[in-house]
């Protein structure tokens, strides 16, 4: 496959600067509403705070890849004397937890860095994080060309994993006949 230039988008997370306001969750869910900004609900956000104020834990986590199965084991991190909850740092939408699943459909969601036309200067969670716990950075890297998987396909794949290809195809066929 050919080498192509790829823009790497990074969000640098400085948890010491986080003030725990959850504006990132709010604006993410508003941006991804349809029509844009027409509603918000942090449960639909692709960034979530792991938040335990009395333990001084404020950890923003971005939704990463969908994982069909949960891990064989779980992790717990202790950093600077703070014990983070199980799998706190993990970005996967996985069957072991509700995090990063649409509350209605249960389908996985994933951070898309607020892709928009025309492109935004930075993802909106970063823009609304005026305390600079979230900082956006971009760089270019040469990578092998790869196929982009869109949202619909990610969703369908998770349904295949859950119900099997045959059942899914049958259901879609039935639904399309009904119009």
């Amino acid at each position, binding site marked *: 496959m050919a080498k192509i230039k790829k823009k790497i988008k990074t969000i640098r997370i400085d948890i010491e600067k986080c*003030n*725990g*306001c959850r*504006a990132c969750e709010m*604006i993410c869910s*508003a941006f991804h509403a349809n029509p*844009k900004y027409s509603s918000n609900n942090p*449960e639909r956000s692709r960034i979530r705070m792991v938040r335990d104020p009395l333990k001084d834990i404020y950890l923003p986590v971005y939704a990463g890849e969908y994982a069909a199965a949960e891990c064989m084991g779980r992790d717990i991190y202790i950093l600077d004397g703070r014990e983070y909850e199980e799998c706190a740092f993990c970005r996967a939408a996985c069957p072991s937890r509700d995090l990063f699943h649409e509350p209605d459909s249960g389908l996985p969601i994933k951070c898309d860095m607020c892709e928009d036309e025309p492109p935004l200067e930075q993802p909106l969670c970063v823009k609304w994080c*005026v305390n600079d716990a979230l900082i956006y950075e971009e760089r270019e890297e040469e990578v092998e060309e790869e196929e982009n998987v869109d949202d619909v396909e990610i969703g369908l794949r998770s349904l295949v994993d859950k119900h099997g290809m045959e059942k899914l195809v049958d259901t879609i066929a039935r639904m399309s006949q009904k119009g």
Partner: protein
Amino acid sequence: MRYAETGYNLEIDLSTGNIERVETDPRWTELYLGGLGTNAKIMWDRVPPETEPFSPDNLLIFSTGLLGGTPAVGANRTMITTISPQTQFMAYSMMGGFFAPEMKYAGYDKIIIRGKSPKLVYLWIKDDKVEIRDASHLAGKGAVETQELIKRELKEPRAHVAAIGLAGENRVFFASIEQGRSSASRQGLGAVMGDKGLKAIAVRGTTKDINVARPEEFIKLCDEVLEYTMWRQANPIPGQIPITAILGSPQEMLECDEKWHTENFVWGNARTRRKDFWSKEIEQKWTETQLNVRTRLISCYNCPLKCGALISVPGVARYMMKCFSKLTYTMAAYVDDLDFGFRIAQRATEYGIDGFSGPQVMAFAVELLEAGILTEKDFEGCPTDNEGRFYWLLDRIVRREGIGDVLADGTYWAAKKIGNGAEEFAHNNIRKQEQAPLKLGMLNPIYYLMYSTNEKGNITQIEGQFPQFAYPKLEQREAFVKDWFQVPDDRFKEYFLKWEPRGEFSMPFYPGIKECCEIVDWMERMHYIDDACGVCTGLSAFHLKPPYHIHNYPKIISAATGIDMDEEELTKISKRDRQLVRANNVRRGLRRADDTPPEDHWKKRFPEYEKQLLDAYFEFKGWNMDGVPTKESLQELDLAYVAEDFEQRGIYKDGED
């Protein structure tokens, strides 16, 4: 579709266990907006004036604001309303934090509680699922501890919990409701919650999306608010003390410089001003103490300002604090060490008491002891040092043990019970409630009107838009008004430009009566809009040059809700809400005599001029000289039903209105 609001209230009867989800009337939103406005309407309709605070018929309403849970920055307040055991009037205390947005995402604008549970319970609200659960294992637990225990037993770390401590359970008249980094403290809401047998409400919302009517327009307005907020933080107003120079609710956790509070507010039982207190040594020591215990500055939902803090004092459990309570205990107890303030506030927060009334009640008791009105017998077993006495009193008050049982009703009612001249010592009350400990020299006519007529019971919750003092130089004043676009009318700039610290155009006679009425009315109007929308006054009405003001509020409300709105209409709604709050209290007996600041609040008083001021302000507000909203003013605001009720009850005297 309903915009900004969910369109549903949750009605819970704790006597019968009945739970209902009730659709609300969209017309009410147009008339009263929401939050405090619709709370006042519900209280008017459903809580007749005969209702005692501790009656099952008293309602306890937890309300979101109209903009709560939308992207509007800082729209996170929970407005709590009930009949206060202390003032016997309609109480409306409020709290920031995360509770109101969570209620919205669960699908409710208000939680309306009536009745009384025979045993201690808590509510668990997760979206459509609502349970009344046993709380007997939480009896006596701290308000902070309870929140953690409930989240743990529900396995819901993302739930938000509002809870009472021992003070609420024992119906202490100044018991608070605590929630996360916030609390609704004034007027004894926690006592009513305790009386209802309700230890806590836990809420978790996942399914309800909060819609806005015109998204692109709305988000642009929110962006502007956020941008201006940060500009204001980066550009403090010259000539102001630290907490009024920048935004916040106020920024007491950030600021260590307490020269202004410690030297201008009074110590002990609201008695002594210590004009040279803030020495270099104290400054260094207090700053060190604060920085050592302050683990992190933290915010409420969707707000960039960090007005609260996680406080970690060695040897005691962690808690969260904001605003002024770091000083109230220290100053009331006459202790020169701020470490005491942070330590005792931890215990007081777990017990759940108001940081204004609590310390003053204790200082009042100490004074009564010194005056021989209370005796050593009342204080048997009490340590003799200032710190020890305060801890001892606090422990007794929240348990209603011995003298603590008398003091738990606040200074007004306690003094009545104690007698023997004790009433003279309950000297800092308005409407039977302890006020901020301020004793000043010259009458300030603006503050005179605010203190007199403010039914919220907390002066900081009505002031804000107009500077507290005149600037000495004209150039300074000109610089101040240059970017003062928040004024409703340019004449407010003229009032400020003309105002001098001394001479012909100084207090008490300038700003003049008409000007004072307009200034106070403007300040109050903005607070009423905040309290209906659920927007924090720390970004709005409490501050000079705030991000939310009378010019952008109508646009924000309109874009969020789809309701047509302009400045005139919004002003009319705020007046309607104001009259309705007043009307609730008038029906419970509030009259002009209740609009009286403490006698010793200012050294130089002007009784005749004060009467003229109050007369003029009453007229300006559409009240008769008794402080009762006139029939005419009520009719203009579509409140004819209130006027009719007043007439039936004979509240209007013969030949009036």
